[in-house]
């Protein structure tokens, strides 16, 4: 029974874990991932990218400011309760405690929002999470960096407009919003409605029952609606099925615009030629020609300790998103050390780091990610930084840029966010503040 061998081998470690270990002087980074279950497909490459980047930093720079990075991975299976367990298990590890968490899931984020405020550990949620947390005055510990759901949605409409030749051309267009019938899927409803009113286009929502293995009915409905454009707000196996059914319903892929989480090879490849010409919004630029990837190959994969297979880097958008997560984590820590000195950073210090990140071209150049991501900066009030969005087109083999960096429309989003956040603040009786 090898199981028992493993167990017996690990009892000592286990007791250590129960007693609480003695820590080396390292920045401790909890890595919560989901590699199993129906979403494991998406979770694994992201986690691999994240960890590969951390490995690379240790190998290339010997950590941040001379202090090594240490991390521990914890399987959440994309379930809030499992994530909370991981969070509680890892939050006090490391000499200065956990630096920051990246839940990688909206439901997961919600389950710790109150906890991080109490434990003073920042939460980075890039492209997902609680939208109105972008208001840093109400949510000092939560950072939906770059783009939240609503901002992204405004960018999408702008992109469609650009295809049509200007926002004024939106008038009278019919746009179908095909979404995963869940909290996540429904979230952009309000902002889309608002835009529909503003620009005078017609909007119709089409929910897809989870997990969306068979969407014939939905797409027949979409076809009957005869939309000019389809917004695909899917997740997991739903996306590729959607693309296929769309093709069967004779809706050209070029008319379908996906969101960040419908924007990976996992969605396009299985759909085969049905997805050629499909565009989707992303926080990053496609391709792996950036310095950072060369470094990962050189210092991690060539050294033979890549977390996943190397191909992932080239054919997994989510791997590259994972790298982006790593970049943000490390940058936040780096910024914090500038202020607090070269020692393991605590959550509180890292929070300052995130809030004072300034990703201008010079900085991005230095990090080897120039043009991989746009430059943006976070302030105490604006925890999003409202970075512009890159639209990518699937050409049948790879994603290629389909647009320039498209700015989001904060005039629409910001008021909505502040209103929503204010509601939360009064409910929890939080005093708006920017220290």
């Amino acid at each position: 029974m090898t199981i028992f061998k493993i167990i017996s081998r690990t009892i000592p470690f286990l007791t250590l874990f129960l007693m609480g270990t003695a820590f080396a002087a390292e920045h401790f980074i909890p890595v919560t991932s989901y590699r199993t279950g129906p979403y494991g497909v998406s979770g694994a490459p992201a986690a691999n990218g994240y960890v590969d980047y951390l490995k690379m930093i240790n190998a290339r720079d010997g950590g941040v400011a001379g202090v090594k990075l240490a991390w521990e991975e914890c399987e959440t299976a994309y379930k809030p309760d499992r994530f909370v367990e991981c969070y509680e298990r890892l939050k006090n590890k490391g000499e200065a405690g956990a630096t920051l968490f990246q839940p990688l899931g909206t439901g997961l984020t919600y389950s710790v929002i109150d906890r991080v405020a109490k434990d003073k550990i920042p939460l980075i949620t890039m492209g997902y999470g609680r939208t109105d947390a972008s208001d840093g005055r109400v949510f000092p510990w939560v950072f939906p960096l770059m783009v939240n759901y609503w901002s992204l949605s405004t960018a999408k409409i702008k992109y469609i407009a650009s295809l049509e030749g200007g926002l004024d051309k939106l008038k009278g267009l019919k746009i179908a919003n095909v979404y995963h019938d869940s909290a996540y899927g429904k979230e952009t409803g309000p902002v889309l409605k608002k835009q529909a009113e503003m620009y005078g286009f017609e909007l119709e929502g089409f929910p897809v029952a989870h997990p969306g293995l068979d969407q014939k009915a939905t797409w027949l409905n979409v076809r009957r609606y005869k939309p000019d454009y389809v917004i695909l707000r899917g997740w997991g196996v739903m996306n590729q099925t959607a693309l296929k059914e769309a093709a069967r319903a004779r809706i050209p892929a070029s008319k379908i615009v996906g969101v960040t989480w419908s924007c990976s090879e996992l969605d396009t490849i299985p759909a085969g030629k049905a997805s050629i010409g499909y565009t989707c919004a992303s926080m990053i630029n496609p391709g792996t020609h950036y310095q950072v990837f060369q470094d990962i190959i050189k210092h991690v994969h060539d050294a033979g300790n890549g977390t996943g297979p190397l191909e992932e880097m080239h054919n997994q958008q989510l791997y590259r998103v994972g790298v982006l997560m790593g970049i943000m984590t490390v940058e936040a820590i780096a910024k914090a050390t500038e202020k607090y000195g070269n020692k393991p950073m605590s959550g509180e210090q890292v929070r300052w780091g995130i809030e004072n990140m300034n990703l201008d071209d010079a900085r991005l150049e230095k990090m080897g990610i120039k043009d991989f991501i746009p430059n943006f900066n976070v302030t105490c009030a604006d925890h999003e930084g409202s970075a512009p969005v890159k639209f990518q087109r699937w050409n049948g083999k790879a994603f290629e840029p389909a647009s320039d960096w498209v700015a989001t429309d904060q005039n629409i989003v910001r008021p909505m966010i502040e209103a929503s956040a204010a509601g939360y603040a009064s409910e929890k009786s939080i005093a708006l503040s920017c220290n």
Partner: protein
Amino acid sequence: MDFWFFIEVFVGGLLSGVMYSLVALGFVLIFKASGIFNFAQGAMVLFAALTFVRLLEMGLPVLLVLAITMGVMVLLAIAIEKVVLRPLVNQDLIILFMATIGLNYFIEGMAQLVWDSNVHVLDLGIDEYVAFEIGDAFINKFDVWAALIAGGLVLILSLFFRYTVIGRALRAVADDHQAALSVGIPLRTIWIYVWTTAGLVALVAGIVWGSKLGVQFAISAVALKAIPVLIIGGFTSVPGAIIGGLIVGCGEKLAEVYLGGFVGGAIENWFPYMLALIVLMIRPEGLFGEKIIERV
């Protein structure tokens, strides 16, 4: 237009119904012969499909791959009989049901451990985007193929049950364990046969669903789609699985398209169960299930 649209929805429903039947068949086989509700059927579909596609990716010829995969499923069946069923022989059915739950976790883990948890494209060489046009309705070629495969499978199975020794043996067991034993059919071999057959059905289902969704963990979820089919068709009837599938497929599509709008859509998950429930209220043993007789 709207008439043709209705036709399209209707036929589309029938065709996806057949897809559900494919999965339901696996359940029926095992339940018919041993009264066990095999919770692990979904996992078996996943495992079979993964094995098939991964071997294919290694560049082996299709037929060889098919043969190997079948072999694997046989081995799996034997292993299950030896390790799980034999120690639990003549336990309550609920216990065996539970065992299959354990089995489910194990196979799911194993499938992804041995192969991997990525999405794999499985191309049967059928162009999915060609459709026969009847009036204004598109009837998708791929779906028709799937339907044909399923139909063929059912035909083979019924012939198998009717005309082969093993088939008759299975029927005997289904009717009465004691009787089967008394005419000298060892229950263990029977079980191996049953689980093998179920495994092969799982393979077919896996291939068809896999080429539709891409082979990945999520296809183990098709099992949930099969349950209402079983209920309506009856746990013990092979043709029932098909009819049930058609009813469910049709019902849910029509409901989604024509009723969904009124309640905000996405009713496909629960509608089949409500449908099944209605059927049960009228016929507690399903349309084709054997009548439950209680003697006082």
